[in-house]
């Protein structure tokens, strides 16, 4: 069996799984799996760029996903002029001052000779800058959050057209990538060039902090009060159902208008996501087979030799780390678009960081096609393990009497089967097939 037929067989199997879901459950669930599978595949592509191409270990994927989501709100929501008038400028000014403090400290570090004077000067700049930042920032935040706190209380976004300008959400995707890239640059600048575990720990930390900021800074994106009703690039179901042309057409095909409208919207999303995935996949594939890609793999396989050949290992690592994080950020923005809301409370490391890792490793580290496959396959498994686990528990507990504590406990715990399954999948693949389903060539 050649590689091509094997790959076709794998993807046919995935297609079969999704279509099977359509027949067994409903076409809505099948499209749900498909849409999230597309997004997962993009995330896996980004992580594969970091891990597969360059051997960089990023455990902060959740943070970059969340930054993408934040970008969607900041770009696609209508602005809140009152909030801007009340404190927007103060907040912006304080953020600029905060950034200036850090730049000033870095400049001082570079300009002063090594010694006690430098340490004191830096600490003085940072402390003074922080106090000034807080004194300006706090007032601005209080003013913004006081404006219409029940529905807004934040600065809103940049979309003057509101819901009529749904296409602005698509503009938010690359912006999400940029935000994620910026965060990745800061992390990469500090942690790359040191031992590999440090990058892992630093990314773990930044992810927690990004989520903490998004949960607590209400002025930015309402924090845990969530932003709902994001404008969207696809039409609204209710509009479709009220559109006589649409209803006529689908009833002509023998479909129920309500179901048809939900399917149609999901299909539009699927088309958009597939376009992004194909574009990024082609780019990643081109990158892998370019001189740049060969250089990255050479660095990954032997840093010392690559360095001796005159390659700047740390700079190349930084480059690929930023690129990979940007792709994850784009996927994060797309996911928030699909959800139609930003809910910082739902970002869980096990769901967003470690699941993507399982996708990359199961698919095949270093293989773009493998990552895409892993994205679909593991997402399907993630969605299906819960009903399957419940079924299994029902089977196990079938003999126990109603209300028996063990029975109740097992049924309640079925939801946690996911973590166990994913852990076992990861360990088994690493042990018995470390190169993944579609190995790197």
């Amino acid at each position: 069996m050649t590689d091509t037929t094997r790959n076709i067989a794998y993807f046919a199997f995935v297609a079969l799984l999704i279509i099977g879901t359509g027949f067994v459950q409903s076409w809505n669930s099948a499209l749900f799996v498909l849409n999230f599978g597309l997004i997962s595949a993009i995330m896996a592509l980004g992580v594969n760029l970091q891990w597969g191409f360059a051997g960089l270990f990023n455990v902060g994927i959740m943070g970059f996903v969340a930054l993408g989501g934040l970008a969607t709100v900041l770009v696609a929501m209508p602005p809140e002029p009152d909030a801007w008038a009340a404190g927007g400028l103060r907040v912006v000014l304080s953020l600029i001052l905060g950034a200036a403090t850090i730049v000033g400290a870095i400049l001082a570090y570079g300009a002063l000779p090594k010694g006690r004077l430098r340490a004191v000067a830096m600490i003085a700049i940072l402390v003074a800058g922080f106090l000034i930042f807080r004194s300006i920032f706090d007032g601005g935040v209080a003013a913004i959050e006081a404006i219409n706190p029940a529905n807004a209380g934040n600065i809103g976004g940049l979309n003057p057209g509101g819901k009529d300008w749904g296409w602005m959400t698509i503009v938010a995707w690359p912006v999400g990538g940029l935000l994620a890239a910026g965060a990745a640059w800061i992390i990469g600048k500090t942690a790359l060039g040191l031992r590999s575990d440090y990058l892992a720990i630093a990314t773990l930390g930044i992810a927690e902090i990004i989520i903490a900021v998004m949960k607590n800074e209400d002025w930015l994106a309402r924090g845990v009060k969530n932003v709902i009703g994001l404008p969207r690039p696809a039409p609204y179901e209710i509009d479709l159902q009220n559109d006589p042309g649409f209803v006529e057409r689908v009833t002509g095909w023998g479909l129920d208008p309500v179901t048809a409208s939900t399917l149609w919207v999901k299909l539009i999303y699927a088309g958009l996501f597939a376009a992004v995935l194909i574009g990024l996949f082609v780019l990643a594939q081109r990158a892998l087979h370019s001189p740049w890609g060969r250089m990255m793999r050479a660095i990954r396989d032997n840093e010392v030799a690559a360095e001796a050949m005159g390659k700047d290992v740390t700079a190349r690592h930084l480059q690929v780390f930023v690129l990979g994080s940007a792709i994850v950020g784009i996927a994060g923005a797309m996911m928030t678009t699909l959800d139609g809301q930003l809910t910082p409370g739902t970002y869980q490391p096990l769901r967003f960081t470690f699941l993507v890792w399982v996708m990359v490793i199961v698919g095949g580290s270093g293989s773009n096609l493998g990552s895409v496959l892993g994205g679909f396959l593991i997402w399907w498994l993630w969605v299906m393990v819960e009903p399957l686990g419940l079924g299994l528990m029902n089977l196990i507990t079938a003999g126990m009497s109603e209300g028996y504590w063990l029975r109740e406990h097992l049924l309640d715990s079925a939801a946690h089967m996911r973590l166990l399954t994913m852990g076992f999948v990861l360990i088994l693949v690493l042990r018995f097939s470390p190169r993944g389903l579609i190995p790197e060539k």
Partner: protein
Amino acid sequence: MDLLNAIVALSNFVFIPAIAYGSQLALGALGVTMIYGILRFSNFAHGDTMAFGTMATILVTWGFQAIGISAGPLPTALLALPFGIAICAGLLLFTDRAVYKFYRQQKAKPVIFVIVSLGIMFIMNGLVRFIIGVDDQRFADGERFIISVRTFKAMTGLEEGLAIKTTQGITVITAIIVVAALFYFLNRTRTGKSMRAYSDNEDLALLSGINPERVVMVTWLLVAALATIAGVLYGLDKSFKPFVYFQLLLPIFAAAIVGGLGSPIGAIAGGFTIAFSEVMITYAWKKVAGYALPDALAPDGLAQLLSTDYKFAVSFVILLIVLLFRPTGLFAGKSV
């Protein structure tokens, strides 16, 4: 100005909680640093190992409570602790046999070990959620306070009260005992010395006839003990929630790196550095400043540098500073 009250308030809200939290972090970081020194990878499953050991202890505690065994004024969990350690050690030895051993024989790269430890983390996290659920569990019983605010005020006649919780006292005493025992073991016993030799230079240690599998086994046993004790102390002091234990990974790693990975004394120093910075930066200084400063200078606001929601940011920033300026940590651990 009232310096005495200021000192009491400072002790009550900053020093005592930070010492207790620092002891817990130090024990956690000791576990991370031991694995790093001997097995040479950063164990991402450590937070969930702590959760698993704590869960085992809680289950045994409930068993004891059900049959009426208690430790009087002390929490029953202390009696259950050895059983919890044993169960946790069993699990760790099993994972080592079933999973890590293979990669050791393959001489896999450290980053592979880290990914494998992620898988283990998933499984342990799943097990804990499966067995005890995701909810908060409080399992502290016995006396709540060594000194309560009211008795302290009655004793001293001061305006400010000082409370020392039993769990805080137990934490500090246990941590001192554990650390003393650990250092005695590492520095004085034959097995401990062979472990340090193995950590310093694996090949030389093998040449001098040290059995690597035995060293690894003893390491896992020690890690099980350290992780379970750290987890139980944290759980007694606050409460047990699996996700919180996962989140403790960040301050624990930060502590281990700040101290210098692979250096036990560094882990302790790092634990206290992180704990004190975290508590001091997120504490609202209004009260203390109100006592210590003349009225004219007393702050209007809370005088809190960062809200407690950002306590993880503190350990993270310290971590970044250490990585930027002194990547080997305070006590020059292994850097590459």
